[in-house]
């Protein structure tokens, strides 16, 4: 998949070189064509993001002007100062809310899923198959069916319009249990047996041996949970109704209804909502993409 994928492609003199391998040695029209296509496609994916950032540094007039410009003239941070201080759209508060919710939800997902997955991977008890089956079964339950009843349950708990509503109900991750269980099963049992003979309790084995060995898997799950929660839209829109309680995605919706064509403000809000995840993506891309490609292997 990345640079380490050389297992099958190792240069074996007996194999016929593929077109790609030939192409690395000489520049053929085919190689040129490929790169032209790749770059064009890349522009389609990247240029909207660049334009979003560019527009957030334009003045109100330039953002609403025509034709669109790619370099702000003059360079202006008005959009940011104006939304950061606005009363009806407290963007800084949304940012804090999103951060708290995403971190708390991610921690809850990883902790509960890791504990449950360990029991399901390594312990023997009646009903294990049933519980695992039930958890996996819910992977196929469309989330729409949970929306109305969960609203009532959250209301019953007095959590409506509080961050608990966006932290707790989505924390039971069936994917997390499935993903970590697979990983735990791959750890050689001999390690745990040795620890057990040394008198370690199941909790000690789990915390001191299994979790440290599973760091990459835990990081992948934590990241995916973080991204999912940071970006969640429908649920926060309906359960967080007062402006100061909203998360960034719900807030963007509020910002849009308050400033329908103030694209400078909207783009500044969108940049604030994207920068943290884009930074995470740039530095931890490997974990995120690996987590996603892993999710396909269960099919």
């Amino acid at each position, binding site marked *: 998949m990345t640079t380490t994928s050389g297992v099958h492609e190792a240069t074996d003199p007996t194999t016929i070189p593929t077109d790609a391998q030939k192409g690395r040695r000489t520049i053929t029209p085919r190689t040129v064509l490929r790169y032209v296509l790749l770059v064009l496609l890349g522009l389609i994916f990247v240029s909207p993001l660049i334009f979003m950032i560019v527009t957030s540094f334009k003045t109100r007039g330039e953002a609403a002007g025509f034709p669109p410009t790619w370099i702000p003239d003059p360079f202006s941070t008005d959009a940011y100062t104006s939304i950061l201080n606005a009363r009806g759209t407290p963007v800084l508060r949304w940012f804090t809310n999103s951060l708290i919710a995403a971190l708390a939800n991610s921690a809850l997902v990883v902790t509960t899923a890791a504990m449950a997955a360990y029991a399901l991977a390594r312990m023997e008890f009646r009903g294990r198959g049933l519980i695992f089956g039930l958890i996996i079964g819910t992977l196929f339950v469309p989330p729409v069916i949970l929306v109305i009843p969960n609203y009532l349950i959250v209301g019953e708990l007095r959590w409506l319009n509080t961050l608990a509503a966006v932290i707790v109900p989505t924390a039971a991750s069936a994917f997390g249990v499935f993903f970590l269980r697979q990983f735990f099963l791959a750890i050689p049992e001999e390690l745990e047996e040795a620890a057990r003979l040394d008198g370690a309790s199941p909790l000690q084995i789990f915390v001191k041996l299994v979790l440290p060995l599973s760091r990459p898997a835990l990081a992948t799950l934590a990241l995916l949970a973080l991204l999912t929660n940071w970006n969640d839209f429908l649920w926060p829109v309906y359960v967080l109704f007062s402006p100061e309680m909203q998360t960034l995605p719900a807030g963007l*919706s509020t910002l849009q209804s308050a400033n329908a064509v103030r694209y400078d403000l909207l783009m500044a809000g969108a940049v604030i909502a994207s920068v943290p995840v884009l930074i995470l993506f740039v530095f931890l891309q490997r974990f995120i993409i690996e987590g*996603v490609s892993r999710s396909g292997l269960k099919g």
Partner: protein
Amino acid sequence: MSTTRVAAPGDTVDAVKKDQRAPRRGVAKHGKVTPWLFLAPYLVLFGAFVILPVLLGFWISLHRWDYTLPNKPFVGFRNYEQLFDSSSRQFEAFWQSMQATGIFTAASVPLLMVLPLLVALVMNQKFPGRNLFRAVYFAPYVLGVAVVAVLWRYLLDANIGLVNYYLGLLGLPDRTAWTTSLPAAWVALVGVTVWWTLGYNSVIYLAALQDIPKELYEAARVDGANKWQQFWNVTMPGLRPVLAFILMITILASANMFGQSYLITQGGPGRETRTAIYQIAETGLRNYQMGSAAAMSYVLTAFLMVLSVAVFWLFRERKTR
């Protein structure tokens, strides 16, 4: 393969399959309650916010359940009957939203099956810069639907948007009202969704492509198969499980489309792009007709289950092939 590393790129499907063997039986390693203590935190959340809601939702759907009223009279299957009674108030709005979801799903699923596969086939070759391009194509997916939708509503603005501007430069029609007219609104919603999620499906395809043993291609080449024949006789059969998986998750995701419509077209023009999820959320959580909304969500789920069964049937293992 070292077992202490996971999530390492380049892991093959064999490595994962090996992981699936059952744990070995050993001597008593833990007390009787220990497993339940480990499971307890998860099961509390799972019970309260997954299992209970599935049951409670059905219970709600059997009542005239208005969140703001004290009485929630039992009405049997009346909520469901109304959804199928063309003279009822809910009928028109519900089926229009189901139709919107159907149009969106039918238009986006084929694109999200084919385009990511093409991208993955290109990315499956070795060339310098491959990881950079993969990251670039995947990048929009890490942004949430809210950012994507707010951004594209600007780009799609009929008067000052980038899309119409560049269409004009190319000499194409440049006055399209992408968010307020049909069928342009559907083109916009599908296009934005493809832009947003193409990378996700590509990454899954790519992982599957890399799991197809190279020996199979060599054997096919020795037998004189050309590239096209190799694609149909080696690549496609090798991708079958993942095709079923991607088809499944893409149908489910498309059928759950909400944010794009909510923020880009506001369900318009009229209610033409108001999807089923949108309708369910508005009925239940804005108008507080939760009984009716719960019934709608069960009807939608029934549709999705029939589709899932159809997908599994379509991709089942066939003996003769």
